[in-house]
């Protein structure tokens, strides 16, 4: 998979490229509009990560040109702007997804993968982590064969974590996925739900599946905590 990262802030470009390469993506970096357009003309990419605030040719202009050339490569827009109106405008201009700075790298990665697979990350109807089983159709959760009763929100939270085992999810990501953006900044709600979830899913069992990654968020992993 070959990705083009169009980002003028060198340090941002560095850590994003490094993180993506660690996930075994091939990453090219373009630091300004003209370079980006040249690179795009020379090479075919599976995904473009585009910063909107670029010197030379603006990100919006690049997006327009990509779509004008009937190139349907997925584009993930990266920007410091977050007004709803602009978000809508960029989706209309052909952006496939949108991420506001500052973002968690984990979130970027999830979105990149989602865009590359063009669909839900994990379509399996039954998800398994360790001895935990989650049936997406009946919305039933079992652990070691025992049925666990969860509320709708608890289920949504667990499903989100279990669908990407080993991946760390930030509280912001969890809030946006399980609640909605009105709850942004209200991170304690995630902590409370995770605590309740642990009481049901982890506490009665010797192996803990839900892990806290301090400063980052939560993950579900069958491996014991490092």
């Amino acid at each position, binding site marked *: 998979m070959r990705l083009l990262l169009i980002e003028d802030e060198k340090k941002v470009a560095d850590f994003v490229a490094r993180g993506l390469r660690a996930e075994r993506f091939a990453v090219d970096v373009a630091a300004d509009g003209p370079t980006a357009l040249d690179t795009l003309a020379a090479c075919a990419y599976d995904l473009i990560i585009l910063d909107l605030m670029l010197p030379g040719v603006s990100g919006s202009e690049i997006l327009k040109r990509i779509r004008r050339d009937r190139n349907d490569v997925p584009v993930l827009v990266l920007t410091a702007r977050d007004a709803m109106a602009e978000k809508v405008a960029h989706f209309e201009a052909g952006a496939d997804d949108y991420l506001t700075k*500052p973002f968690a790298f984990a979130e970027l990665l999830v979105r990149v993968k989602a865009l590359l697979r063009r669909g839900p990350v994990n379509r399996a109807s039954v998800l398994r982590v360790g001895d935990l089983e989650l049936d997406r159709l009946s919305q039933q959760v079992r652990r070691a064969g025992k049925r666990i009763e969860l509320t709708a929100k608890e289920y949504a939270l667990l499903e989100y974590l279990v669908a990407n085992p080993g991946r760390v999810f930030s*509280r912001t990501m969890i809030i946006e996925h399980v609640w909605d953006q*009105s709850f942004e900044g209200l991170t*304690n709600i995630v902590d409370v739900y995770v605590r309740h979830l642990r009481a049901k899913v982890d506490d009665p069992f010797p192996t803990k599946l839900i892990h806290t*990654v*301090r*400063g980052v968020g939560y993950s579900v992993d069958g491996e014991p905590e490092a």
Partner: protein
Amino acid sequence: MNTRSLRFQLVAWYAGVLAGCFVLIGAATYVVLQSSLIGALRETQMRRARQVGQLVLDEIRTSSAARVGEEIQARYAPDINDRFIRVTGSDGSSIYLSREPRDQAFDPADLPPPAWTSRTESARQVPLPDGRKMLLATRQIQTPAGARYLIETGAPMDEVQAHLRQWLTFLLVVLPVVAALALGGGSFLIKRALLPVDQIAASAERISSQNLSERLPVARTGDELERLSIALNHMVQRLDDAFQYSRRFVADASHELRTPLTVLRGELESFSQEPALGPEWRDRLGSALEEVERLGTIVEGLFAISRLDAGEAAAEWVRFDLARMTAATTDQMSLLAEDKNIQVTCAAAQPVWVEGDQARLKQVVVNLLDNAIKYTLQGGAVTLSVHSLDSKAVLEVADNGVGIPPEALPRIFDRFFRVDKARSREMGGAGLGLSIVKSICAAHHGCVEASSTAGQGSRFRVELPLASAPTDHPKNTNHER
């Protein structure tokens, strides 16, 4: 009536000065009138005295004193027209004394005896027994033979006094009328002149930091008030510029902070994933990351507030049922309350329609409810209610928690204001939640206010303009997940 108002003072001065002038003029005319009336009366009496004197001089040589007296009576008949005439010789002999007048206005016998002076002609006022006065003109004559006579002619001063009394009455009647006219007319004129001041004051009262783009009405009258309103408008303009500058600064600053925050967060995150890292390092990195996240929250909050205050809130303006949204949000947050064993009741049975950015208004409910739960102790109660009142949609969030101290209440919506700094930080607050609530309400042409009794609880009240209920069959316009 406000005695310190410009109108009252101007009218009072105006009427006072006018009344004063009137009294002054009245007094002056009274004095002048009095002296001229008396002067005229004296002149008449003196002329009469001269005539009588001439008659005496002419007749006394040829006739007896009694004959002269008859002649005077025949010629002047002072008793018929209320006049007094007395002619006395230097030896005290009475040559003539007028009879009592027909209307018995006075008795000539009551008058003081003749007084000889060194002057040929003189006039004096003598009191009558009943308190009235008589003007007495006196003339001394001397016959060629050397005999001297004193001729006195007099008239009661009733007429003069009647005239003066009439004038005084006129003055006393007219004065209040003039004063009333001055008050009324002055009040009317000044009210008209000061009307723009009231308008300017009312408009100035309406201008707040939320609507600094508004201006005061300028009446093109060319007077001082036009200058005043123009000067005030310039001041509002400068305030507007200052506010916009500070808003832009906050927006720019929070914008510029994002890139370094992204780098910090990304680098720290990737470093904390390093497998070789010991638990102590991982913990320290986690602590740094938590602070980066808090910084991010503050930046987001400031950015949101500056956008809302700049009037850029209306991303998606829709009509929706505030009651339903509040009930749904309360439900979504119920676990937060259960976690502290807090009883949350939501009274929102009737649909209450409002228009606005639903995600933003939901944030109002989320922030207020979160706040209420945070500051309510274990086992407490939080009550939400949504209802319509007149043309307002009212959302109330009340708790029986720790409350807000009275001195903190006015600042509760200020950015970064915290009642209890240590407590708030411990709970992860950035001190922006209520500021965001206020900005969202203002951007929706509504308002939010807080009341509290320390130790007994707080109540937050949000008022938004009520929208008309949809005419078609109400569908679920909420997009809850």
